């Protein structure tokens, strides 16, 4: 089970990662975008920390995250991650703790949210390229009978693989698509921030002894 405390910890850890990787993400975006993804994500998550509600309802927490990101990120990642968290918030509304099945739902609704907003597919060098594999891996692990933390471990590995797999891809969505062929050989910043988000979920769960 992931309690609402686990979720809050996850969000705080994500915020730390965004702060620590701000330069790195921006550097990635400089290569194929407009050099702002790190700043965007850091600014967004800083706002998230200010808005984190004192609430046990996981849905309410995720909704607050969504609204802060929507209003503060500024770039494409704002509405994308905003919609992602909104979809997850809707799916998990009223839950004070998440079962392993609920976490799968969290990942699935996240994918749905990104697709709904960005209308991209796997392989277009976007957030989806780490998020979809994370969801798939989680689902497979759970179907094979793995525990929650093990499932998240699998998801994190898959997200990392997915992130690296964006390097040879040619972007056809987002700002990077203006570069066409020249977007090849660079890792996608959005896929990278998504990896960080999945990774911190795993960390929050394992450090907090989720069962």
């Amino acid at each position, binding site marked *: 089970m992931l309690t609402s405390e686990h979720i809050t910890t996850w969000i705080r850890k994500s915020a730390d990662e965004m702060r620590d990787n701000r330069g790195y993400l921006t550097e990635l975006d400089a290569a194929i975008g407009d050099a*702002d993804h790190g*700043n*965007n994500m850091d*600014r967004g998550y800083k706002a998230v920390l200010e808005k984190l509600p004192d609430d046990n309802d996981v849905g309410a927490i995720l909704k607050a995250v969504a*609204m802060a990101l*929507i*209003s*503060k*990120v*500024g*770039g*494409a*990642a*704002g*509405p*994308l991650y*905003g*919609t992602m968290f909104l979809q997850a918030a809707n799916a998990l509304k009223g839950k004070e703790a998440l079962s392993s099945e609920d976490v799968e739902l969290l990942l699935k609704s996240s994918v749905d949210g990104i697709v709904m*907003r*960005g209308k991209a597919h796997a392989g277009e060098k976007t957030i989806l390229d780490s998020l979809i594999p994370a969801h798939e891996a989680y689902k497979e692990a759970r179907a094979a009978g793995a525990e929650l933390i093990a499932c998240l471990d699998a998801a994190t590995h898959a997200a990392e693989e997915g992130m690296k797999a964006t390097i040879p891809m040619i972007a056809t969505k*987002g*700002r990077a698509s203006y570069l066409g062929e020249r977007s090849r050989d660079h890792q996608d910043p959005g896929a990278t921030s998504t990896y960080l988000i999945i990774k911190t979920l795993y960390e929050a769960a394992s450090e907090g002894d989720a069962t």
Partner: protein
Amino acid sequence: MIAIVIVSHSREISDGLKRMAEAMSQENVPIVSAGGMDEPDNPLGTDALLIKDAIEQVIDNDGVLVFADIGAAKLNAEMAIDLLAADQQRKVRFCDAPLVEGVLAAAVQSAGGGTMDAVIQEAQSAYHPPTDIAKETGTLALEHSDNAIHADYQIVNPLGLHARPAARFVTGLNACTSDVRLRNLTKNSGWVNAKSLNKVVTLEVVEGDYISVSADGEDAAQAHAVIGALIDENFGEGPARIAPDAAPPLESAPATAQLGPVLNGIPISPGFAVAPAHHLRTELPSVDVTRVEDTEAEVARLEDALARARDEITGIMKRSRDTANEYDASIFKAHLLHLDDPEIADIARARIRGEQLNAEAAWQQTAAILIEDYACLDDTLLRARGDDLADVSNLVLRILSGATEPITEFDRPVVLCIPHLTPSDVPALDLEHVRGICVETGGKTAHAGILASGLPIPVVFGVGPRLREVEDGAEVILDGTTGTIDIAPDAKALDNMKRKRDSWVGRISEAQAIKLDPAVTRDGQRRRVAANIASVDEAKIAVDSGAEEVGLFRTEFLYMNRDAAPDEEEQSKVYDKVVAQLGGRSLMIRTMDIGGDKPVPYLDRPGEANPNLGWRGLRYGLSNSDLFQTQLRAALRASAKGPVRIMFPMVSTLEEVLAARNELETAKESLSTAGRAFDPDTEIGIMIEVPAAAELAELIAPHIDFFSIGTNDLTQYVMAADRGNPNIADLFDSFHPAVLRAVKRTIVAAKDAGIWVGMCGAMAGDPLATPVLLGLGLDEFSMNSNQIPEFKLDFTKLSADACVDLAHETLVLTGADQVRECIKAFLEETVS
């Protein structure tokens, strides 16, 4: 109107683009700039919440269209739309179009009243590489019907059809329903949609170019009038640098070959005529400026002309009182005021004496300056005043120059074709021989239009310059019902029209035969038919026309054109006379509705920017107790002589009704004290013409005996559309479901409270409205006397039961045209 929200990563871009779009659409379209982020160190970006706020600011429009620049802006715009409440979301669309071109095109399209889909389509076709356009304009063929109206124009304003002039061109045409196509004759382009800004600018019409315009549809003449007016005012660009050539270049030959034989105009007075066309030029004698020695003699000449003009106008007033009503006559009283206006006469006199000018020149130059002043005003009511002044000024000039009346007598039937009809022309018409009138200019709401609508012959206004092409003496067909003139009818058309005219004449005589019978439907429902009158003499006409009562006696004429308000005795005599004329039929006295637009100098009223929304009707009565009491006492005294009802105009609130009741009680007490007789049970009621009163009808009804719905003002206020403004003439429509709903609400409230409800606006006498009003449950229909016979004839053919269903059907429609179609279909089906 479709509002626009501009989303860009940069606030500067969205602000700047907003300004450009506002300039193009003459600031008519609500546009919100929602660019950038509220982050001082990171202003470039987009913020979904800021965009959502922007949309909410303009959500009360017909729709909101959101435009965005690149990538994230679009995502955030869509995010913002998703965050809106569901009922708001339905009104908002994201428009995938090039930002700058798209927003400009959308603003212009929206200013012209385009629908959401039309605006989107225009925005999305806003960007084409130039080569494509050449191809496209070159191949577009004109597929217009034979009825299309076609004309060529030379564009002489410096900018040509670009930028603001192009925007005004497109905006003006978008107010018309006809399909309008345009081509550049000089550059020999193909035809393009003249309502599309993008298309119009692709024609590259520059100063001096000729364009060819074809308009196909009901208001085709109006479309040409719009273009003519824009060219006349040089698209607002100041004087033209080149003089327009006399004739367009030769290329126009194939275009003119498409001239249709039917001209379209605005129907003013119904009926049919077949007769030879007769052109009358009402051009003025040209005025020479000369130097006079005997200035006093010249001043005397002017005085003499002014006096004769005064006589002439008074004579016209009398004639118009015989043929029309007091309200019409009051229009000429405004003419008299102009004649007596010291501002003109004094200055003209001073110029004769000071500059030794001849009287003609002094008068013309002085009046011209004032007319010009009026023409520059924004207020349409005041601008109309300028037309009156021009009419008066011309009359004086005609007298001074010894020119005769332009509208002469004829010895054989004619259809008159004239460039301009002035109010004073109307009563001067020789109705023996004039079978119909076609006028190049003018509209329904012009004074001349109001007067002409009472004529027993077909009249069509606004035909446009093509009227001049009609050959003098050629037999033409004039249809005053549709507003069309067939200038080259073939034998079949003539035959057709003669039959139509016969049946029209037949119908009139049929109506005359039954006019004194009660109005009873096929299924036995009876309704009261009443007359609207505005003078003593009309009471008799009302009775003769078959009115069962007077549903509206306008009393403003008692107060107009005099030095002091009429006292109780004088008013009492007038009311008694009307009561006597009505021979036991009920008289509805409406207390004075004097507003800032009617000249009543002794009342010393403040000028008002917006008289229609100002200190008028009951509002004015309640704050001028003496004036009000005098009228109430006189009206009550009439109730001792015969059945009288008292009605208050321009009511908005229950408090006003209660205050009016109090005033009436005071009047009754003072009459009792004075030992004067009156009927203590005199019915009192209010006009429903303000939406507030319609909304509150169920609260007001228990306090009074009846409602009478005044549709002209109700329509103007419900639709927020000034009836004198041609650009929004289609909004001012009593058939709009929004107006019908207010009518229904009023009737239901009356029924619930057990009081009766009538209607005394123009709609009550409109044959097309009758089935719906009957179906809604209206008890009394009050109209102009001359409409009563035909109203009764139509009424007896209706089934009240079927009308109930029809009424419900119309209430759920969304537009006035749909309502009309629905009623027409109903009438076709049930009455034949």
